[in-house]
């Protein structure tokens, strides 16, 4: 029978295995409804070098970790990607969300693909490439997905620097610059 770890033990499992490469980690508990039903979400900030291994480590808890999407934003000198996973679905109140943040330097914004482990991640990876100008190493489908083909090259809509969308955004009434 599968053993289900508590969120705290899950965090410990990651920190034991990857030590200082896990830069920051914590589990947040939430309680909802009159019965105060609890569930947890884990947040981790990790070193890029262990990213793929951390994702692989998820498979030791759940044969098929659920990947929701990855978010991303421009922090000036770097681009941060947040990968949102969850494990242990299938029974009431048992699922734990695991959010993994990686920081990619703008000088070399490259991260490995996870689509070989989770094929459902391809669209999300394509989206991060075109929106943030990061490079997903080993992505099976290296094409635009949401942005049209006639959109200029080298413009990344979610960037906040000179490669951002301000030059192509026109006629936006009432939008603060």
């Amino acid at each position: 029978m599968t053993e289900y770890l508590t969120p705290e033990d899950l965090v410990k499992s990651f920190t034991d295995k990857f030590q200082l490469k896990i830069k920051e980690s914590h589990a947040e508990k939430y309680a909802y409804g009159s019965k105060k039903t609890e569930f947890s979400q884990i947040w981790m900030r990790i070193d890029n070098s262990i990213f793929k291994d951390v994702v692989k480590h998820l498979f030791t808890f759940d044969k098929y970790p659920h990947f929701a999407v990855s978010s991303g934003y421009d922090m000036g000198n770097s681009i941060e990607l947040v990968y949102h996973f969850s494990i242990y679905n299938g029974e009431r109140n048992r699922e734990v969300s695991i959010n993994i943040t990686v920081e990619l330097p703008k000088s070399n914004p490259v991260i490995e693909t996870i689509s070989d482990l989770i094929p459902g991640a391809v669209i999300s990876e394509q989206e991060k490439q075109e929106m943030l100008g990061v490079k997903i190493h080993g992505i099976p489908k290296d094409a635009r997905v949401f942005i049209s083909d006639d959109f200029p090259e080298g413009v990344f809509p979610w960037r906040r620097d000179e490669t951002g969308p301000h030059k192509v955004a026109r006629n936006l009434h009432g939008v603060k610059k």
Partner: protein
Amino acid sequence: MSKATTKTSYQLPIGPIHPALKEPVMFEFEIEGERIVNVDVALGHVHRSIEWAGTKRNPVQILYLAERICGICSYCHPMCFALGVEKIAKIVVPDRANYLRIIHAELERICSHILWAGVAAHEVGFDSVLFLTWQMREKALDLTEYLTGNRVTKAITMIGGVRRDITEDMHPKILETLDYFKENFEKLRHVFLDDKTFMLRSQGCGILTKEDALKLCAVGPTTRASGVKKDVRLDQPYFAYGDLDFDYVTPDVLTGEVNGDVYDRIIVRLLEVKQSIELIEQCIKNMPAGEIVAEKKIAKLLATLKKIKGEGIGRMEAPRGEVFHYVKLNESDAPYSWKVRAPTYSNILPWIPMLKGQQIADIPIVAASTDPCMSCTNRVAVVHKNERHILDKEMLHRMSVEKTRRLMT
């Protein structure tokens, strides 16, 4: 005379405007005869930069922007954003507001599933059922209007609660509509699940195996119909779902087996309509007294949010599956980052295994079976040896109807 090379497969682009889809998406099919051997999906024809626009607005303005992401899930998106913000700001939502939130969420599910049932019936040429379902949906919209003041963009969400209460004098109208649904549900169940036409067109068609559903991270009724127990309402009970009595809906509940075909996806949605009716009844029965919003003064709420730094996620079970919002606040008027992931985003890749091996005439019903949040049809272009034949909406629909008729004779 040189012999022309015989080409065994054809390319068939469908979309970006297409009958079975409510928003533009482009399929590129590789066809051998009538059989689909490969599929590729292209998206983004109506990308509206909503996430970017969100970073120029304050969180309360975003609620109304998020509402316009989708005309059917116009409650799920702002609510999911609110859930994310509430987590960051540690806002405790009053119990009564949580129950009210469930009522609106389940009513939206009823609306969406019934609408979908009508579209599915239309796709196989059963338009009398389309009219039956849309008549039922009209009642659901009337109730939505009664509870929120609007039929489509409900404007009921507020960070920390909801904007309108449901008082006791409103209960009779709600219960009366629920009774109407219950009476008609049996008719709908009979038409969809016992009718020979539906069974012929949906059983064994568009199969998504459990393994594919898990690997491709499918969500909602699409994954549950393949036997995967994923439902955010139960997995991570937000609102007050933890207080209520209900369970995962998979097709084996009714038939004892899971096939992962279109028929199973019909079963799951129909059973979920029944489940939603029961959930609303439970909420009305057990509704606690109290406030409906944590902070009534919006200016004060915004002033608080402006001082907060942090990140949070909102997850909800929308009618089509898990909807996911990521919010990052950075001590500013507008969020620093906002990522919206609608359920269809995760149900795009599962289309590929579903459609492979199917016939062209099955495309509308298989594509519709995931209830994609993409809009309506126009034409299909068949390109063969530089000759272009246009199959319009009527033509493709007629092919689907003809297949139904062939099966019936």
